[in-house]
């Protein structure tokens, strides 16, 4: 609903501004000149973003793709040691790095866990956000207080939160294990046991992600007209039916956007994994990005080419996911 109106409004505005500018241009302007005269307002407004993204993402991207086709590593890239400048000696090796990545079982293991991690995290945080938002959207005492409390994790920088969780999860002295021991239960190696480490990183990420989902869903709920619910109630629809047939469809525009974005963010969620477990124990919580980071910044010698190849593969995977997802939504009649 919102999508339609906003688009028609925007179209009207576009047509208007085009006409307005058109009148002032020469009668037979060159095509480029005409385009410039018509669109320079818009272009100058987007220019800073295009330039910044173009330089800071465009260049590194091209360079990253190029690096992924070479055998660059710490030992053969251009570098300066003292006063000596050593030129780069790495060579073009074609698709070797990609072959290496795709035939490596490490990649497929990490991919499997990354997908599990993404799906579980997004599903849990969206589900919890949905439930809590529906509760907060009712008339209830202390709503403002609950809302403030539930969004609070968002206000704390993620690395501080993650650090706090590490304190709580600490195997020997952490609060959780002390409480368990108080109840006569053996301590759990939260971050030292592969399975528990996975549970822990997911729990922390969900804890971090719920506030965003909650706020987004709450906003979506408030944009659904109350009359729809009144009409449904008059017709005798049950609470579940109202949720199923009014709330869910009404939330679709919000839900589809936040699910896609949060899937992309979770897939690339570097800080949580890196700061909580550094990918360990062993490599049990390592996702694709943390592994790529490890290749170029932690391991020795630093393997820039392999890291870049991993990066390109990650990007391609995400693009495929995004395109498939948008397709699926479009088939169901979604705009955009």
């Amino acid at each position, binding site marked *: 609903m*919102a*999508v339609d109106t906003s688009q028609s*409004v*925007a179209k009207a*505005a*576009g*047509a208007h501004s085009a006409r307005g500018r058109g009148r002032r241009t020469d009668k037979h302007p060159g095509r480029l000149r005409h*385009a410039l005269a018509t*669109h320079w*307002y818009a272009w100058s*407004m*987007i220019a800073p*973003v*295009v330039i*910044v*993204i173009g*330089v800071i*993402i465009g260049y*590194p*991207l091209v360079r990253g793709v190029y*690096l992924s086709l070479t055998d660059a590593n710490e030992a053969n890239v251009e570098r300066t040691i003292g006063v000596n400048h050593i030129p780069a000696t790495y060579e073009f090796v074609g698709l070797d790095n990609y072959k290496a990545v795709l035939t490596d079982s490490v990649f497929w293991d990490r991919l499997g866990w990354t997908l599990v991690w993404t799906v579980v995290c997004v599903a849990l945080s969206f589900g919890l956000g949905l439930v*809590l938002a529906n509760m907060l959207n009712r008339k*209830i*005492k202390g709503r403002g207080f*609950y809302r403030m409390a*539930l*969004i*609070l*994790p968002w*206000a*704390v*920088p*993620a*690395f*501080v*939160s993650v*650090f*706090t969780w590490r*304190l*709580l999860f600490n195997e020997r002295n952490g609060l959780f294990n002390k409480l368990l021991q108080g109840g006569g239960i053996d301590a759990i190696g939260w971050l030292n046991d592969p399975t528990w480490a996975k549970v822990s990183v997911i729990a922390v990420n969900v*804890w971090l992600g719920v506030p965003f989902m909650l*706020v*987004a869903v709450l*906003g*979506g709920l408030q*944009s659904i007209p109350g009359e729809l619910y009144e009409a449904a109630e008059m017709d005798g629809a049950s609470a579940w039916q109202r949720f199923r047939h009014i709330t869910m469809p009404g939330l679709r*525009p*919000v839900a589809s956007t*936040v699910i896609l*974005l949060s899937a*992309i963010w979770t897939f*690339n969620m*570097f800080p949580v994994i890196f700061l909580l477990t550094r990918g360990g124990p062993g490599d049990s919580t390592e996702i*694709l990005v943390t592994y*790529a*980071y490890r290749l170029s*910044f932690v391991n020795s010698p630093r393997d820039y080419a392999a*890291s*870049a190849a*991993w990066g390109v593969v990650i990007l391609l995977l995400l693009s495929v996911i995004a395109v498939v997802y948008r397709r699926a939504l479009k088939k169901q009649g979604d705009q955009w």
Partner: protein
Amino acid sequence: MPTPRKVRARGERSPLASVGLHLTLIVAAVIAVFPPLWLVVTSFKPKTDAFDTHLVKNFTLGNYTHVIKDTEFLTWLGNSLIVVGLTTVIGVFISATTGYAVSRFRFPGLRPLMWMLLITQMFPVAILIVPLYNLLAGLGLLNQPVGLVVTYLTVAVPFCAWMMKGYFDGIPVEIDEAGRVDGLNPFGTFWRLIMPLAKPGLAVTAFYTFITGWAEVAYASAFMTGEENLTLAGGLQSFVNQYTAEWGSLTAAAVLIAAPAAVVFGLVQRHLVSGLTAGATKS
């Protein structure tokens, strides 16, 4: 005999349902609030009690004075303030102009721009970080706040521009037309009429940009080296490695880092729901 169902007015619910609702929300609120709260509690304990399960027994400010006096904390704070302040101001401004342009004008390059804004969200840090490191090194921007500012802009602006577009879409286009009739050019309309109306959206954008810069770790630790150049995020990392046992200092530093973020959050939280809705529903 079945008891006749009590008829309730709309919006009312049984006491039992109310209790359930409140209980669930209380549990959720406790889970949400507990870790930050525990951090604060721990920071007021003497070093030796860091893992004590009691609330504060021997209250002390020692951790705070230690962090502020004996470490580079204030330097890091200064660095963070410069980087994040610049990022927020510039980020809000260019997200707003971009959002306005894609909301109000139809121009060649609109669709590619929208795609670019989406795809930028997908770039893994890992693929960018090495070439970006080289680029910044080439431009002499390593260890310079400007390098980090520009990097953070590329992280925050795409999402913010998207959000601002949604927000501007919700502002009636008649307002622009009225401005035009009164002789304002499109920049004037944007600056004098639309920007003041978009304050809630701008607040969310500011919050998001702020928290992006304030909380970023990977770029900050890769591009800034040397104690005196670190930002808070990078600084706290070096802390963890140096003083593994000193949970007291760590928690105090963490609280000091989280406090400004909480203040900014408090200032904008009223607008968060409306601002984000606009962005999410109308993108």
